[in-house]
């Protein structure tokens, strides 16, 4: 479908600008917060006005914008909670000042398209610009958008990103809604608690998508999204993918998040795959968040380009081949997705 020419990731671990994942940081209070870089080249006053998701999105995209040199044909962002923090900060002002005189700063920053808008400003880009916010599919729908754009405009390149932050408020709402574990979790016992809930995460992943295979990091072969609570639908979707692209998966990158309510989906997918498939996991690295599949895609690129899986990520060692990686994720038990990534 398309090639990834560049990819950058600002995450809770050492991933930016170079990755070193052999040792991991544990969650603090069941949150995996990003390690923010110094943002060299971003004016300080502009930085101060940005929310964390906008900061990390811009931070991850800047090296790509710099390296690309020529113009970028579009900016396509997936974010579920972009703007949430500013929304509630603004709302707090509205209610606490009883709708009195308030400044519009947080309101303007609260729009979900703030990251895509900032990227257009920092790169003076007047082309295609869109923000997909469909919660657990926001990043996948951005990838599908890029794939369509590259079919429509063959000689183009698109900056595609997935970004979400842990804000005080979205953490609180999701915590109330039982999406996070109350008991402390470490990287080591992330998957073995056998309790409901996961650990909150956040990250920004930005990539450059083109039709150019020369020197590409990886190819995104297919992206499938579905909404269901029925395992049979997920199994059927997987069978269709394998029938379409060949049953040649080397690595299954599983979105397991330690929430025992959803293990059955991941087990069902694992069981559909050949016995010699290596099963790896990533949410102990980045935590759980709606666009975590963008971190999975970055991790898949890392695996394909280094031919190495950190030991902590291996659930089951199988084939030692590094050609085809299948990412599967389910968000909150309803939004499922598959992303098939191939070596370039």
């Amino acid at each position: 479908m398309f090639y990834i020419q560049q990819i950058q990731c600002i995450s809770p671990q050492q991933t930016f600008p170079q990755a070193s994942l052999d040792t991991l940081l544990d969650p603090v209070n069941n949150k995996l917060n990003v390690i923010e870089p110094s943002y060299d080249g971003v004016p300080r006053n502009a930085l101060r006005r940005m929310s964390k998701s906008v900061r990390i999105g811009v931070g991850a995209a800047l090296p790509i914008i710099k390296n690309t040199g020529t113009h970028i044909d579009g900016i396509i962002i997936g974010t579920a909670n972009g703007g949430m923090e500013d929304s509630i900060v603004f709302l707090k002002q509205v209610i606490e000042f009883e709708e009195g005189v308030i400044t519009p700063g947080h309101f303007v920053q609260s729009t979900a398209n703030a990251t895509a808008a900032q990227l257009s400003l920092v790169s003076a880009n007047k082309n295609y610009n869109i923000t997909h916010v469909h919660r657990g599919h926001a990043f996948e729908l951005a990838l599908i958008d890029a794939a369509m754009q590259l079919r429509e405009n063959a000689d183009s390149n698109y900056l595609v990103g997935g970004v979400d932050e842990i804000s005080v408020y979205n953490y609180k709402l999701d915590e109330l809604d039982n999406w996070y574990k109350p008991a402390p979790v470490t990287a080591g016992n992330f998957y073995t608690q056998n309790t409901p809930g996961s650990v909150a995460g956040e990250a920004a992943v930005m990539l450059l998508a083109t039709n150019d295979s020369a020197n590409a990091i990886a190819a995104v072969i297919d992206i499938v999204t579905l909404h269901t609570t029925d395992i049979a639908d997920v199994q059927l979707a997987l069978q269709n993918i394998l029938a379409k692209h060949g049953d040649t998966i080397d690595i299954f990158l599983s979105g397991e998040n330690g929430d025992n309510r959803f293990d059955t989906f991941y087990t069902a997918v694992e069981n559909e795959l050949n016995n010699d498939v290596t099963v790896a996991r990533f949410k102990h690295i980045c935590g759980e968040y709606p666009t975590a599949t963008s971190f999975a895609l970055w991790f898949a690129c890392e695996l394909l380009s280094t031919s190495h899986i950190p030991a902590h990520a291996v659930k089951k060692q199988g084939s030692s081949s590094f050609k085809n990686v299948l990412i599967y994720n389910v968000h909150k038990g309803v939004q499922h997705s598959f992303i098939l990534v191939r070596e370039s």
Partner: protein
Amino acid sequence: MGVISAIGNTVAENHSALINGSCGIGQLQDFPSKYAGELPFAAVKLSTEKLKQILGVTDPSVTRTTLLAMAAFTEAIQDAALAAATLSSLGTALIGASTVGGMCLADELYRDANESYKESPYLSSYDCASVFLYMQKHYQLRGLINTINTACSSSANAIMYGARLIQNGLAIKAIVGGADSLSKFTINGFHALHILSPEICTPFDENRQGLNLGEGAAFLVLEKAEDAAGKKIYAEVKGYCNTTDAFHPSSLSDNGDGPYLAMQGALASAKLHAADIDFINAHGTGTENNDLAESRAMQRIFDHVPPFSSTKSFTGHTLGAAGAIEAVYSILNIINGETHPTLHFNNTIPDTGLTPVTTHQSIKAKHVMSNSFGFGGNCSSLIFSSVS
């Protein structure tokens, strides 16, 4: 097509108000904001309870934005005579847009986020995706579902995304549109930006004082020309373009670069010349900044600016629903061969000398352009054409 807005709960009611010049902007009743009695707004004339009753919704987590979306969606799928099996087909996509989503429940969100109110039914209802995730479940949709938020151009981009899914073979049918409801959140946001008009808005008028916020929803059912053969066809999605102004987070550049590029790109995508456009449903919010930038952009594109109008003078600015509502109105222009007036207009902006259409007139409307511009510089322009 389906639409619900301050000027009616159906396409027919909206059409009747547009040709009769019946404005939907006025006093807001029973709304939890101090501005409800001070400023004009354009509310849908059905209470949230009444909407729930009409739609048969009992789930306490469902918000007004979702109910408005469902009202328009229901009309659209009935109009297109989509059977339940077709709705649930893997090839039927739903592409929605919203900017407010469940944040219409501003006080509840504040309470839940600050007071840890565990019993709240709304914990998963505040984001924009909640609207279309609920509809997925309610209507048992199985195709691709998306939620787009590019501020005030959101539902124009939903139409574009749906059309492209069909063209790329990723959907057979796409139900596209958007919904937003009035919220204390947006009311105070636009008020803080000093762009809410104290009077009923007067788009493209020299003395315009800002916009009025509105609410509503609209959906359109799209499919390939060959699949639509033999069915009732209103119009063709002829062209579209999404661009960025790349100027300022909340205002347009003086010359309207983003709007200019969007209109130019839509013409190129439709393989039309500027002179082919018969009518423009302008973004026309009534703010100082938008109407001037949009006028200048129109003058850069068109040697002679075609008849244009802002139906926001009827509906207020419905934010994430505006692109879809105005797409329905543009199609009404085409199928009825008519213009829709800009209400309350008095004086031409001296800088531009452009006067919007102020009456309902018969017109040849083969190609109609619809503009939507949003915060963050997100500009989209759509072109609809008659199929005869």
